């Protein structure tokens, strides 16, 4: 399973999102600190789910970080997040 698929699976299971996009932006960071030649280091997540209703931005992003903590501690160098309620 690729890192992107892994992120998508975990977020889907945890939040049953109304919409979810996992975008690999690693190529924009090739050669930067934290980049690896094989890519899959920099991601952008755009997620819409009921779970974020009534939560502020910091809490929403913390919820996502918690679900993806293994990835953040491992292969993922940067994760950009846009999380909203429907």
């Amino acid at each position, binding site marked *: 399973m690729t890192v992107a698929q892994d992120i998508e699976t975990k977020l889907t299971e945890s939040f049953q999102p109304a919409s979810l996009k996992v975008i690999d932006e690693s190529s924009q960071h090739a050669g930067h*600190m934290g980049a690896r030649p094989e890519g899959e280091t920099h991601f952008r997540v755009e997620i819409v789910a009921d779970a974020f209703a009534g939560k502020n*931005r*910091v809490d929403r*992003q913390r919820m996502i*970080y918690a679900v993806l*903590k293994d990835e953040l501690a491992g292969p993922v160098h940067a994760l*950009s997040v846009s999380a909203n309620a429907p």
Partner: protein
Amino acid sequence: MSENPVLERIKGEVDENEVVLFMKGTPVFPQCGFSSVCVQVLSNLGISFKGVNVLEDGEVREGIKAYSNWPTIPQLYVKGEFVGGCDIVREMYESGELIEYFNTNGINVELANPE
């Protein structure tokens, strides 16, 4: 949290400075695109801030993640409160919320002249 000297040091920084950005690199020479975005936003608003370069101090680099329960850098603090990382700072800037936030906290905003 008072037992840990690194967390005490971090608390000292955010208590002593109204606006603090924990970042990779310095405000003049950011070494990470996400840190650079935050510096740019603060500069556009004419906010004077203290930049803390986590690349110079491994203890602070790890400690700041525990301090705010936030695993990434940059991190912006205003009047001791954690505001957010790069995504949140950018979203708040684009929506105008950030200016309001600084105004509410009594921090002087001077919009840079686009000329």
